[in-house]
Protein backbone atom coordinates (compact mmCIF):
# COMPACT_ATOMS: atom_id res chain seq x y z
CA UNK A 1 0.00 0.00 0.00
CA UNK A 2 2.96 2.26 0.49
CA UNK A 3 3.43 2.62 -3.26
CA UNK A 4 -0.24 3.50 -3.71
CA UNK A 5 -0.01 6.16 -0.98
CA UNK A 6 3.08 7.63 -2.58
CA UNK A 7 1.29 7.66 -5.92
CA UNK A 8 -1.78 9.37 -4.48
CA UNK A 9 0.40 11.92 -2.71
CA UNK A 10 2.04 12.77 -6.03
CA UNK A 11 -1.37 13.08 -7.72
CA UNK A 12 -2.61 15.33 -4.91
CA UNK A 13 0.14 17.87 -5.54
CA UNK A 14 -1.24 18.56 -9.01
CA UNK A 15 -4.91 18.78 -8.06
CA UNK A 16 -6.89 22.00 -7.45
CA UNK A 17 -6.32 22.76 -3.75
CA UNK A 18 -10.03 23.27 -2.94
CA UNK A 19 -10.93 19.71 -3.96
CA UNK A 20 -7.73 17.73 -3.52
CA UNK A 21 -8.65 15.98 -0.23
CA UNK A 22 -12.05 14.97 -1.55
CA UNK A 23 -10.69 13.68 -4.84
CA UNK A 24 -7.83 11.78 -3.21
CA UNK A 25 -10.17 10.15 -0.67
CA UNK A 26 -12.42 8.93 -3.49
CA UNK A 27 -9.51 7.82 -5.65
CA UNK A 28 -7.96 5.95 -2.71
CA UNK A 29 -11.22 4.07 -1.99
CA UNK A 30 -11.66 3.10 -5.62
CA UNK A 31 -8.05 2.04 -6.14
CA UNK A 32 -7.89 0.09 -2.88
CA UNK A 33 -11.08 -1.76 -3.81
CA UNK A 34 -9.59 -2.53 -7.21
CA UNK A 35 -6.36 -3.74 -5.61
CA UNK A 36 -8.25 -5.99 -3.21
CA UNK A 37 -10.19 -7.48 -6.12
CA UNK A 38 -6.96 -8.20 -7.96
CA UNK A 39 -5.46 -9.85 -4.88
CA UNK A 40 -8.61 -11.91 -4.31
CA UNK A 41 -8.46 -13.04 -7.92
CA UNK A 42 -4.80 -14.11 -7.60
CA UNK A 43 -5.24 -15.50 -4.07
CA UNK A 44 -2.12 -13.64 -2.87
CA UNK A 45 -0.96 -10.08 -2.24
CA UNK A 46 0.43 -8.24 -5.24
CA UNK A 47 4.19 -7.83 -5.36
CA UNK A 48 5.72 -4.38 -5.47
CA UNK A 49 6.60 -4.75 -9.14
CA UNK A 50 3.00 -5.77 -9.98
CA UNK A 51 1.66 -2.70 -8.14
CA UNK A 52 4.25 -0.58 -9.92
CA UNK A 53 3.13 -1.92 -13.31
CA UNK A 54 -0.54 -1.32 -12.43
CA UNK A 55 0.14 2.28 -11.34
CA UNK A 56 2.27 2.90 -14.40
CA UNK A 57 -0.61 1.77 -16.57
CA UNK A 58 -2.85 4.28 -14.84
CA UNK A 59 -0.62 7.15 -15.97
CA UNK A 60 1.82 9.67 -14.54
CA UNK A 61 0.46 11.50 -11.45
CA UNK A 62 0.29 14.88 -13.18
CA UNK A 63 -1.63 13.32 -16.10
CA UNK A 64 -4.15 11.70 -13.76
CA UNK A 65 -4.58 15.01 -11.90
CA UNK A 66 -4.91 16.95 -15.16
CA UNK A 67 -8.09 15.02 -16.02
CA UNK A 68 -9.83 16.66 -13.06
CA UNK A 69 -9.35 20.12 -14.59
CA UNK A 70 -11.68 21.45 -17.24
CA UNK A 71 -10.17 21.51 -20.72
CA UNK A 72 -8.20 24.74 -20.98
CA UNK A 73 -6.87 26.63 -23.97
CA UNK A 74 -4.73 29.70 -24.17
CA UNK A 75 -6.67 30.46 -27.34
CA UNK A 76 -9.52 28.05 -28.03
CA UNK A 77 -10.94 26.92 -31.38
CA UNK A 78 -13.82 29.43 -31.20
CA UNK A 79 -11.52 32.47 -31.34
CA UNK A 80 -8.50 30.93 -33.02
CA UNK A 81 -9.46 31.85 -36.62
CA UNK A 82 -10.00 35.47 -35.64
CA UNK A 83 -6.72 35.44 -33.66
CA UNK A 84 -4.83 34.11 -36.69
CA UNK A 85 -6.36 36.74 -38.99
CA UNK A 86 -5.60 39.60 -36.59
CA UNK A 87 -2.09 38.27 -35.93
CA UNK A 88 -1.27 38.20 -39.65
CA UNK A 89 -2.66 41.68 -40.24
CA UNK A 90 -1.02 43.15 -37.13
CA UNK A 91 2.39 41.64 -37.91
CA UNK A 92 2.23 42.70 -41.59
CA UNK A 93 1.25 46.26 -40.76
CA UNK A 94 3.76 46.53 -37.93
CA UNK A 95 6.52 45.58 -40.39
CA UNK A 96 5.24 48.00 -43.05
CA UNK A 97 4.85 50.91 -40.60
CA UNK A 98 8.23 50.19 -39.02
CA UNK A 99 9.88 50.21 -42.45
CA UNK A 100 8.04 53.40 -43.42
CA UNK A 101 9.08 55.24 -40.24
CA UNK A 102 12.66 53.98 -40.58
CA UNK A 103 12.68 55.05 -44.25
CA UNK A 104 11.43 58.54 -43.43
CA UNK A 105 14.01 58.86 -40.64
CA UNK A 106 16.78 57.72 -42.98
CA UNK A 107 15.83 60.30 -45.61
CA UNK A 108 15.20 63.18 -43.21
CA UNK A 109 18.36 62.55 -41.17
CA UNK A 110 20.39 61.65 -44.25
CA UNK A 111 21.65 58.57 -42.40
CA UNK A 112 24.26 56.12 -43.61
CA UNK A 113 23.28 52.86 -45.39
CA UNK A 114 24.23 50.99 -42.20
CA UNK A 115 21.07 52.48 -40.71
CA UNK A 116 19.09 50.56 -43.38
CA UNK A 117 20.62 47.33 -42.04
CA UNK A 118 19.77 48.36 -38.47
CA UNK A 119 16.16 49.06 -39.48
CA UNK A 120 15.89 45.62 -41.11
CA UNK A 121 17.47 43.92 -38.09
CA UNK A 122 14.84 45.55 -35.84
CA UNK A 123 12.06 43.73 -37.72
CA UNK A 124 12.23 40.34 -35.84
CA UNK A 125 11.92 42.20 -32.52
CA UNK A 126 8.92 44.16 -33.81
CA UNK A 127 7.26 40.94 -35.06
CA UNK A 128 7.77 39.15 -31.74
CA UNK A 129 6.55 42.09 -29.71
CA UNK A 130 3.38 42.54 -31.82
CA UNK A 131 2.72 38.76 -31.82
CA UNK A 132 3.11 38.67 -28.03
CA UNK A 133 0.64 41.54 -27.54
CA UNK A 134 -1.93 40.08 -29.93
CA UNK A 135 -1.61 36.67 -28.22
CA UNK A 136 -2.00 38.27 -24.80
CA UNK A 137 -5.13 40.17 -25.86
CA UNK A 138 -6.67 37.06 -27.41
CA UNK A 139 -5.79 34.97 -24.35
CA UNK A 140 -7.74 37.55 -22.32
CA UNK A 141 -10.65 37.30 -24.80
CA UNK A 142 -10.54 33.49 -24.50
CA UNK A 143 -10.58 33.78 -20.71
CA UNK A 144 -13.53 36.17 -20.90
CA UNK A 145 -15.40 34.01 -23.40
CA UNK A 146 -14.88 30.93 -21.19
CA UNK A 147 -15.87 32.62 -17.94
CA UNK A 148 -18.56 35.03 -19.22
CA UNK A 149 -19.90 33.26 -22.33
CA UNK A 150 -23.14 35.29 -22.56
CA UNK A 151 -21.34 38.66 -22.52
CA UNK A 152 -18.73 37.73 -25.09
CA UNK A 153 -20.89 35.62 -27.37
CA UNK A 154 -20.17 37.84 -30.38
CA UNK A 155 -16.47 37.08 -30.09
CA UNK A 156 -16.90 33.33 -30.08
CA UNK A 157 -18.22 33.31 -33.62
CA UNK A 158 -21.87 32.26 -33.32
CA UNK A 159 -23.53 35.62 -33.78
CA UNK A 160 -21.39 37.38 -36.38
CA UNK A 161 -23.57 39.47 -38.60
CA UNK A 162 -22.75 38.59 -42.17
CA UNK A 163 -24.51 38.21 -45.44
CA UNK A 164 -23.80 35.76 -48.24
CA UNK A 165 -24.42 38.58 -50.73
CA UNK A 166 -21.41 40.49 -49.38
CA UNK A 167 -19.04 37.58 -50.07
CA UNK A 168 -16.38 38.23 -52.75
CA UNK A 169 -16.89 36.57 -56.17
CA UNK A 170 -15.54 33.05 -56.73
CA UNK A 171 -11.79 33.18 -57.21
CA UNK A 172 -10.50 31.50 -60.32
CA UNK A 173 -7.06 30.80 -61.68
CA UNK A 174 -5.85 33.29 -64.19
CA UNK A 175 -6.20 32.21 -67.83
CA UNK A 176 -2.44 31.89 -68.04
CA UNK A 177 -2.74 29.14 -65.43
CA UNK A 178 -0.70 31.07 -62.88
CA UNK A 179 -1.31 30.44 -59.20
CA UNK A 180 -3.28 33.21 -57.47
CA UNK A 181 -1.22 35.56 -55.32
CA UNK A 182 -1.08 34.46 -51.68
CA UNK A 183 -1.39 36.86 -48.75
CA UNK A 184 2.26 36.27 -47.74
CA UNK A 185 3.36 37.00 -51.31
CA UNK A 186 1.31 40.20 -51.41
CA UNK A 187 2.77 41.37 -48.08
CA UNK A 188 6.28 40.56 -49.31
CA UNK A 189 5.62 42.61 -52.46
CA UNK A 190 4.66 45.65 -50.37
CA UNK A 191 7.54 45.22 -47.91
CA UNK A 192 10.21 44.72 -50.57
CA UNK A 193 8.67 47.44 -52.73
CA UNK A 194 9.03 49.77 -49.79
CA UNK A 195 12.64 48.72 -49.17
CA UNK A 196 13.37 49.36 -52.86
CA UNK A 197 11.78 52.82 -52.54
CA UNK A 198 13.96 53.69 -49.55
CA UNK A 199 17.01 52.47 -51.49
CA UNK A 200 15.96 54.63 -54.44
CA UNK A 201 15.55 57.71 -52.25
CA UNK A 202 19.00 57.23 -50.74
CA UNK A 203 20.75 57.15 -54.14
CA UNK A 204 21.20 60.94 -54.64
CA UNK A 205 23.11 61.22 -51.35
CA UNK A 206 24.87 57.88 -51.75
CA UNK A 207 25.32 57.17 -55.49
CA UNK A 208 27.47 54.10 -54.75
CA UNK A 209 24.20 52.33 -53.76
CA UNK A 210 23.42 52.29 -57.48
CA UNK A 211 26.81 52.23 -59.15
CA UNK A 212 28.98 50.63 -56.50
CA UNK A 213 32.67 51.58 -56.87
CA UNK A 214 31.74 53.10 -60.26
CA UNK A 215 30.41 56.14 -58.35
CA UNK A 216 33.94 56.99 -57.16
CA UNK A 217 35.37 56.53 -60.65
CA UNK A 218 32.68 58.82 -62.06
CA UNK A 219 33.47 61.43 -59.43
CA UNK A 220 37.15 61.32 -60.32
CA UNK A 221 36.50 61.24 -64.09
CA UNK A 222 36.10 64.33 -66.31
CA UNK A 223 32.47 63.32 -67.00
CA UNK A 224 29.31 64.16 -65.07
CA UNK A 225 25.64 63.18 -65.37
CA UNK A 226 23.52 65.69 -67.28
CA UNK A 227 20.68 67.52 -65.41
CA UNK A 228 18.09 65.55 -67.44
CA UNK A 229 18.54 62.64 -65.04
CA UNK A 230 16.94 64.62 -62.16
CA UNK A 231 13.36 64.67 -63.57
CA UNK A 232 13.89 61.08 -64.78
CA UNK A 233 14.91 60.05 -61.26
CA UNK A 234 11.80 61.67 -59.73
CA UNK A 235 9.60 60.00 -62.36
CA UNK A 236 11.01 56.62 -61.31
CA UNK A 237 10.44 57.47 -57.61
CA UNK A 238 6.84 58.52 -58.36
CA UNK A 239 6.29 55.29 -60.29
CA UNK A 240 7.51 53.24 -57.32
CA UNK A 241 5.36 55.22 -54.90
CA UNK A 242 2.30 54.57 -57.10
CA UNK A 243 3.08 50.86 -57.31
CA UNK A 244 3.78 50.33 -53.60
CA UNK A 245 0.79 52.50 -52.62
CA UNK A 246 -1.54 50.67 -54.99
CA UNK A 247 -0.42 47.28 -53.71
CA UNK A 248 -0.75 48.50 -50.11
CA UNK A 249 -4.33 49.64 -50.78
CA UNK A 250 -5.12 46.28 -52.40
CA UNK A 251 -3.77 44.60 -49.28
CA UNK A 252 -5.88 46.73 -46.94
CA UNK A 253 -9.00 46.14 -49.02
CA UNK A 254 -8.38 42.38 -49.12
CA UNK A 255 -7.98 42.29 -52.91
CA UNK A 256 -4.41 41.04 -53.08
CA UNK A 257 -5.17 37.78 -54.88
CA UNK A 258 -7.15 39.25 -57.78
CA UNK A 259 -5.75 40.20 -61.20
CA UNK A 260 -3.96 43.55 -61.45
CA UNK A 261 -4.56 44.41 -65.07
CA UNK A 262 -5.25 48.14 -64.54
CA UNK A 263 -2.25 48.47 -62.23
CA UNK A 264 -0.06 46.58 -64.66
CA UNK A 265 -0.97 48.83 -67.63
CA UNK A 266 -0.83 52.09 -65.68
CA UNK A 267 2.66 51.28 -64.36
CA UNK A 268 3.88 50.16 -67.79
CA UNK A 269 2.52 53.24 -69.56
CA UNK A 270 3.85 55.59 -66.89
CA UNK A 271 7.16 53.72 -67.12
CA UNK A 272 7.46 55.00 -70.67
CA UNK A 273 7.47 58.63 -69.45
CA UNK A 274 11.04 58.69 -68.06
CA UNK A 275 12.22 56.70 -71.10
CA UNK A 276 10.69 59.20 -73.51
CA UNK A 277 12.08 62.02 -71.41
CA UNK A 278 15.67 60.82 -71.78
CA UNK A 279 15.29 59.77 -75.41
CA UNK A 280 14.11 63.22 -76.45
CA UNK A 281 16.99 65.07 -74.78
CA UNK A 282 18.69 67.55 -77.07
CA UNK A 283 22.00 66.32 -78.59
CA UNK A 284 21.68 63.05 -76.66
CA UNK A 285 23.79 64.63 -73.93
CA UNK A 286 23.34 62.07 -71.14
CA UNK A 287 26.77 62.89 -69.78
CA UNK A 288 28.70 66.13 -70.12
CA UNK A 289 32.23 67.23 -69.41
CA UNK A 290 32.95 68.85 -66.05
CA UNK A 291 35.35 71.31 -67.68
CA UNK A 292 34.35 71.46 -71.35
CA UNK A 293 36.86 74.16 -72.27
CA UNK A 294 39.82 72.24 -70.88
CA UNK A 295 38.76 68.64 -71.66
CA UNK A 296 36.93 68.88 -74.99
CA UNK A 297 40.02 68.12 -77.01
CA UNK A 298 41.00 65.11 -74.89
CA UNK A 299 37.65 63.55 -74.00
CA UNK A 300 35.21 64.96 -76.57
CA UNK A 301 35.29 61.86 -78.78
CA UNK A 302 34.97 59.48 -75.81
CA UNK A 303 32.01 61.45 -74.48
CA UNK A 304 30.25 61.28 -77.85
CA UNK A 305 30.79 57.51 -77.98
CA UNK A 306 29.45 57.06 -74.41
CA UNK A 307 26.34 59.13 -75.11
CA UNK A 308 25.73 57.30 -78.37
CA UNK A 309 26.01 53.89 -76.61
CA UNK A 310 23.63 55.04 -73.87
CA UNK A 311 21.17 56.26 -76.48
CA UNK A 312 21.26 52.93 -78.31
CA UNK A 313 20.76 51.07 -75.03
CA UNK A 314 17.80 53.24 -74.10
CA UNK A 315 16.28 52.73 -77.55
CA UNK A 316 16.50 48.95 -77.10
CA UNK A 317 14.92 49.19 -73.62
CA UNK A 318 12.16 51.43 -74.98
CA UNK A 319 11.50 49.01 -77.85
CA UNK A 320 11.27 46.05 -75.41
CA UNK A 321 8.91 47.93 -73.05
CA UNK A 322 6.63 49.06 -75.91
CA UNK A 323 6.60 45.57 -77.47
CA UNK A 324 5.77 44.01 -74.09
CA UNK A 325 3.01 46.55 -73.52
CA UNK A 326 1.50 45.90 -76.96
CA UNK A 327 1.73 42.15 -76.41
CA UNK A 328 -0.04 42.43 -73.02
CA UNK A 329 -2.70 44.72 -74.47
CA UNK A 330 -3.29 42.27 -77.34
CA UNK A 331 -3.48 39.29 -74.99
CA UNK A 332 -5.91 41.10 -72.69
CA UNK A 333 -8.02 42.02 -75.72
CA UNK A 334 -8.11 38.40 -76.89
CA UNK A 335 -8.98 37.18 -73.38
CA UNK A 336 -11.89 39.59 -73.01
CA UNK A 337 -13.10 38.71 -76.53
CA UNK A 338 -13.06 35.01 -75.60
CA UNK A 339 -14.95 35.74 -72.39
CA UNK A 340 -17.57 37.76 -74.30
CA UNK A 341 -17.98 34.96 -76.83
CA UNK A 342 -18.27 32.35 -74.06
CA UNK A 343 -20.88 34.48 -72.30
CA UNK A 344 -22.91 34.78 -75.51
CA UNK A 345 -23.00 30.99 -76.09
Amino acid at each position, binding site marked *: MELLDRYLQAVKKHLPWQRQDDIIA*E*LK*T*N*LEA*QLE*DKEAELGRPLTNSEIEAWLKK*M*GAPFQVAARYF*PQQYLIGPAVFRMYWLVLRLAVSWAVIINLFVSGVQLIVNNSSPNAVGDAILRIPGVIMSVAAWVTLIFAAIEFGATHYPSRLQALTGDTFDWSSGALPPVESRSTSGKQLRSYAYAVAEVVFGFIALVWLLLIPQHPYLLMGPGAYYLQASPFQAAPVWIPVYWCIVALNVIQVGWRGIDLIRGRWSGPRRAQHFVVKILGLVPLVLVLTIRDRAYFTLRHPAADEAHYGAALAAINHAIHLGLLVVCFIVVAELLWDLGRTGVESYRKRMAAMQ
Partner: protein
Amino acid sequence: MGYSMTMTENLFENLRMELRRGCLTLAVLAQLRQERYGYTLRKALAERGLEIDESTLYPLLRRLESQGLLTSEWREEEKRNKRFYRLSGDGEQMLGQLFEEWQTINAAVDATIQNS
Protein backbone atom coordinates in the same frame (compact mmCIF):
# COMPACT_ATOMS: atom_id res chain seq x y z
CA MET B 1 6.27 1.02 -43.89
CA GLY B 2 6.57 0.82 -40.07
CA TYR B 3 6.18 4.57 -39.87
CA SER B 4 2.95 4.52 -41.92
CA MET B 5 1.61 1.65 -39.80
CA THR B 6 2.20 3.71 -36.66
CA MET B 7 0.49 6.67 -38.28
CA THR B 8 -2.51 4.51 -39.18
CA GLU B 9 -2.64 3.05 -35.70
CA ASN B 10 -2.47 6.52 -34.15
CA LEU B 11 -5.19 7.77 -36.45
CA PHE B 12 -7.38 4.79 -35.61
CA GLU B 13 -6.78 5.33 -31.90
CA ASN B 14 -7.72 9.03 -32.16
CA LEU B 15 -10.87 8.29 -34.14
CA ARG B 16 -11.80 5.45 -31.78
CA MET B 17 -11.43 7.78 -28.79
CA GLU B 18 -13.63 10.39 -30.47
CA LEU B 19 -16.25 7.76 -31.24
CA ARG B 20 -16.21 6.39 -27.70
CA ARG B 21 -16.23 9.71 -25.84
CA GLY B 22 -19.91 10.53 -26.23
CA CYS B 23 -21.00 6.89 -25.90
CA LEU B 24 -19.20 6.55 -22.56
CA THR B 25 -21.08 9.49 -21.09
CA LEU B 26 -24.35 7.93 -22.19
CA ALA B 27 -23.36 4.53 -20.74
CA VAL B 28 -22.26 6.08 -17.42
CA LEU B 29 -25.51 8.02 -17.08
CA ALA B 30 -27.49 4.88 -17.92
CA GLN B 31 -25.60 2.78 -15.35
CA LEU B 32 -26.15 5.40 -12.65
CA ARG B 33 -29.90 5.06 -12.71
CA GLN B 34 -28.86 2.68 -9.95
CA GLU B 35 -26.62 4.10 -7.21
CA ARG B 36 -22.96 3.04 -7.45
CA TYR B 37 -19.52 4.11 -6.37
CA GLY B 38 -16.66 4.58 -8.78
CA TYR B 39 -15.08 1.15 -8.77
CA THR B 40 -18.32 -0.85 -8.97
CA LEU B 41 -19.45 1.39 -11.81
CA ARG B 42 -16.23 0.68 -13.64
CA LYS B 43 -16.70 -3.07 -13.11
CA ALA B 44 -20.34 -2.92 -14.25
CA LEU B 45 -19.33 -1.12 -17.45
CA ALA B 46 -16.48 -3.59 -18.09
CA GLU B 47 -18.86 -6.54 -17.64
CA ARG B 48 -21.02 -5.03 -20.39
CA GLY B 49 -18.02 -4.69 -22.69
CA LEU B 50 -17.17 -1.05 -22.02
CA GLU B 51 -13.66 -0.98 -20.55
CA ILE B 52 -12.86 2.46 -19.23
CA ASP B 53 -9.68 3.73 -17.55
CA GLU B 54 -9.79 4.88 -13.94
CA SER B 55 -8.19 8.16 -14.93
CA THR B 56 -11.02 8.76 -17.41
CA LEU B 57 -14.00 7.52 -15.42
CA TYR B 58 -13.45 9.19 -12.06
CA PRO B 59 -12.90 12.72 -13.43
CA LEU B 60 -15.91 12.15 -15.74
CA LEU B 61 -18.09 11.44 -12.70
CA ARG B 62 -16.93 14.72 -11.12
CA ARG B 63 -17.66 16.62 -14.31
CA LEU B 64 -21.15 15.15 -14.69
CA GLU B 65 -21.83 16.00 -11.07
CA SER B 66 -20.67 19.60 -11.52
CA GLN B 67 -23.01 19.81 -14.54
CA GLY B 68 -25.90 18.79 -12.28
CA LEU B 69 -26.54 15.45 -14.00
CA LEU B 70 -25.40 13.33 -11.02
CA THR B 71 -25.71 13.64 -7.27
CA SER B 72 -23.27 12.07 -4.82
CA GLU B 73 -22.86 11.34 -1.16
CA TRP B 74 -20.17 9.85 1.05
CA ARG B 75 -21.37 6.77 2.90
CA GLU B 76 -19.74 3.92 4.77
CA GLU B 77 -20.00 0.50 3.20
CA GLU B 78 -18.00 -2.60 4.17
CA LYS B 79 -16.06 -0.53 6.71
CA ARG B 80 -14.90 1.89 4.04
CA ASN B 81 -16.05 5.38 3.20
CA LYS B 82 -17.21 5.52 -0.42
CA ARG B 83 -18.63 8.19 -2.62
CA PHE B 84 -21.85 6.98 -4.19
CA TYR B 85 -23.25 8.52 -7.33
CA ARG B 86 -26.70 8.39 -8.83
CA LEU B 87 -28.60 10.13 -11.61
CA SER B 88 -30.24 13.44 -10.66
CA GLY B 89 -33.62 14.66 -11.95
CA ASP B 90 -31.87 16.69 -14.67
CA GLY B 91 -29.68 13.69 -15.40
CA GLU B 92 -32.78 11.50 -15.97
CA GLN B 93 -34.13 14.01 -18.45
CA MET B 94 -30.76 14.39 -20.19
CA LEU B 95 -30.34 10.61 -20.40
CA GLY B 96 -33.72 10.33 -22.13
CA GLN B 97 -32.80 13.00 -24.68
CA LEU B 98 -29.32 11.60 -25.29
CA PHE B 99 -30.64 8.07 -25.66
CA GLU B 100 -33.16 9.22 -28.27
CA GLU B 101 -30.41 11.10 -30.12
CA TRP B 102 -28.12 8.10 -29.95
CA GLN B 103 -30.80 5.83 -31.42
CA THR B 104 -31.39 8.26 -34.28
CA ILE B 105 -27.67 8.49 -35.03
CA ASN B 106 -27.25 4.73 -34.73
CA ALA B 107 -30.13 4.07 -37.14
CA ALA B 108 -28.83 6.67 -39.61
CA VAL B 109 -25.27 5.29 -39.51
CA ASP B 110 -26.58 1.73 -39.91
CA ALA B 111 -28.67 2.75 -42.91
CA THR B 112 -25.73 4.64 -44.43
CA ILE B 113 -23.36 1.70 -44.01
CA GLN B 114 -25.85 -0.81 -45.39
CA ASN B 115 -26.67 1.36 -48.41
CA SER B 116 -23.07 1.99 -49.35
